[in-house]
């Protein structure tokens, strides 16, 4: 197991290096002088330009710039945002909990609803129940979520007035983040039920929107995986042995069927981050996705460069974790990954 982990990490290293090179080069491909783009004309006294160029390390040859970028990144220094003048790392850690909390809640309902629906559809294969459930999940899978979000806002916020339209908590609550998870922080900071419900209320629609595609994907995956397993020899043997249908499905088949589903869930992180860009923009959710979009519009290149790198590290780490989990669930594979 340990050697597997090591091999996997060794493999991840060059990938991350590649990612960092891509992130680095992308920013350098911007037409025009980034310093002049960042400064207005009036900041453009020659000394100020030279100062900023120096601060950003842009007066050095390209390979040195890249070297500094990764060497600093390795020590946790990701540079400063041009817009806020704060370290990118601080800005990232300020916002990441918001994205993580939203993603976890979205994933939670997607799994809790997706797996049972997939199982039911598989058991009722080719019957009306199957068709209905699979149609629903196909629609969910094809959903342009920015439109789906608008529809939900139109119904629940605008027409019925049940849920708020943006943000994480009403502005009247002065919540100083503790963990960054508002569902938790409202208790830690003593805002009580009122604060907690405000946080929940703000969470409902974005989580619903963000979880839609993962839900559909999980339901579809569970169904096909379970159907495949049911055709395997050991299930047939179990049937021949006269085990009850219930036992066959829930004790034997489902366990094996869920192995690929677990993998899919693990790999969903990328999907959630993609969804978070749109969901956060739509609901003014102060997370990483909205931050990146805002940085694109503000041409905040240090943020883009390091933000992309940080998110990629996250995805790669998650992939390693999933691989580990997969081999652990499925010992046959351990030798030859």
């Amino acid at each position, binding site marked *: 197991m340990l050697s597997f982990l090591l091999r996997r990490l060794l493999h991840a290293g060059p990938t991350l290096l590649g990612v960092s090179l891509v992130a680095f080069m992308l920013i350098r491909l911007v037409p025009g002088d980034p310093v002049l783009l960042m400064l207005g004309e009036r900041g453009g006294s020659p000394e100020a330009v030279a100062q900023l160029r120096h601060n950003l390390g842009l007066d050095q040859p390209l390979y040195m710039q890249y070297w500094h970028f990764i060497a600093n990144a390795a020590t946790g220094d990701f540079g400063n945002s041009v817009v806020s003048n704060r370290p990118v790392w601080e800005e990232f850690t300020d916002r990441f909990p918001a994205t993580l909390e939203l993603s976890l809640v979205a994933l939670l309902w997607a799994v809790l609803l997706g797996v049972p629906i997939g199982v039911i559809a598989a058991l009722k294969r080719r019957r009306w129940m199957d068709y209905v459930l699979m149609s629903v999940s196909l629609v969910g899978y094809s959903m342009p979520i920015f439109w789906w979000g608008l529809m939900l806002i139109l119904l629940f916020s605008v027409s019925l007035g*049940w849920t708020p339209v943006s943000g994480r908590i009403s502005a009247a609550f002065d919540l100083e983040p503790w963990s960054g998870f508002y569902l938790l922080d409202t208790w830690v900071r003593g805002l009580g039920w009122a604060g907690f419900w405000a946080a929940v209320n703000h969470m409902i629609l974005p989580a619903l929107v963000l979880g839609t595609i993962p839900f559909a994907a999980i339901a579809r995956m569970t169904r096909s995986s379970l159907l495949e397993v049911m055709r395997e020899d050991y299930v047939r043997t179990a049937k021949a042995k006269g085990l009850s249908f219930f036992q066959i499905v829930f004790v034997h088949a489902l366990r094996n069927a869920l192995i690929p589903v677990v993998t899919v869930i693990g790999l969903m992180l990328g999907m959630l981050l993609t969804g978070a860009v749109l969901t956060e923009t739509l609901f003014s959710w102060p997370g990483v996705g909205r931050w990146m979009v805002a940085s694109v519009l503000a041409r905040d290149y240090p943020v883009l460069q390091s933000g992309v790198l940080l998110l990629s590290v996250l995805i790669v780490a998650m992939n390693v974790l999933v691989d580990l989990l997969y081999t652990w669930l499925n010992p046959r594979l351990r030798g030859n990954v």
Partner: protein
Amino acid sequence: MVRLLSVLLALVFSASAQAEKVFVYCSEANPKTFNPMLADDGPSFNASSQMLYNRLVEFKTGTTEIEPSLAEKWEISKDGKTYTFKLRKGVKWHTTEAFKPTRDFNADDILFTFHRALKKDHPFHTVSGGNYTYYLGMEMDKLIKEIKKVDDYTVRFTLTRSEAPFLANVAMNFAAILSAEYGDQMIKAGTKEKMDTDPVGTGPFVLKRFTKDNSIRYEAFTDYWQGKAKLDKVVFAITPDPSVRFNKLKAGECHLIAEPQPQDLPQISGNPNLKLMSQPGANVGYLALNVEKAPFNKVEVRQAVAHALNRENYMQVVYQGTASIAKNPIPPTVWGSSPDTKDYEYNPEKAKELLKKAGFPDGFETDLWTLPVSRPYNPNGKKMGELMQADLAKVGIKVKLVTYDWGTYLDKTKKGDFQMAQLGWTTDNGDPDNFMGTLLACGAINASNIARWCDKSYDQIVMKAKTVTDMKARTVQYFKAQEAFKKNAPWVTLAHATVFRGLSKKVENYKISPLGTEDFYPLDMK
């Protein structure tokens, strides 16, 4: 279930609100800075100058009248060149995490503040980019010859010439007074930028926390020299999307919203919990044509654009009838606006003729920058841009619409990176010079003269209008200036818009400022 919860929520909410008066303002954009001298846009001024600082003299809330503030009284010499200010005693500075004041406000602070912007060798001059837009735009660097500390509570400004609007100028947002002691401490600590990010002022509120793209939190300053504000806390909930702001107002999540959209106005006035306030705006929305860039260096092309735009239509579609077509830069609500100006009427045929004359019989391709945020003078830049695009296509000008986020947009327009750009202005001192000089004089190029138009004879007229003190004589000069402006068409003047505010009925004492800024100190809540 959800409804039950919201009822529950409302109950707990109102119970806690009674204990503390929390006022939530849904603002439209992040402040670019907390130091007013570096700022040049409404959101930054509202968040910094009004909330955190004071000026030597100030505008009485809701008017353009000047009243004493940090200066209790002042004397102006006969030749109009010397201003002596007697300063107020016992004015306290904010105490924050970064700074514990050991002394009250005094003359050193005035010198520190003005010298930072005006003296190139001042230790703070280049800090935070050193963009003193307003100081440059108002030509303060050329105007102020010397500032002298007579004693701890007396300062004397000596000017290079007599300047009629000088007192109004130092009442403006950018002239907010910073703490010299804080500056000294930050020099010692090696963290000069903190002056601008962790502000310390003498104003009615203290900055507690700024979360970018999210909120700014303030608490009332207990030792404020005019007495503690009635509001305990003020929150700016940063909400760029105007439809979201409107929904938040309806839901009671904010008590006042910036720039409601014209199409939402009937709903605000019809809502029993809300009230709609309005005031003819002292503003102008315009389309600047960059005269340094071909083909807009040709006056015929600029006039052609003015003839090609169907502004009547914009009044209906973009402003929903809440604005009037602008023919002058100076709105009719400010004195000095010329009723005799002859406007360019909508006439595509004439536009084509002019283009032919300029050597573009088949038109040309160009960029048009559209405002990324809703402003009082233009609630929807993109929409207006699409209308302009269609109008210009009719005379053969193919337009690509371009936009950036607000901060970048302002920076780049100042730099003259564009060909055509929408922008506008709300006066910040009620003086005609604040339009004709600030926005169109040669000295304001690289600052707020984004069309980069520089006409020597026009400049002389405006300069003369500024140095004479007689209002009638000034008016005559401004009429002349407007004629010259119109003939040269560096802008297409678009609209003077009515300013609207939607607010909760709980809010008391709110007044719309003709100067476009928000002053929350007098507010109270039921």
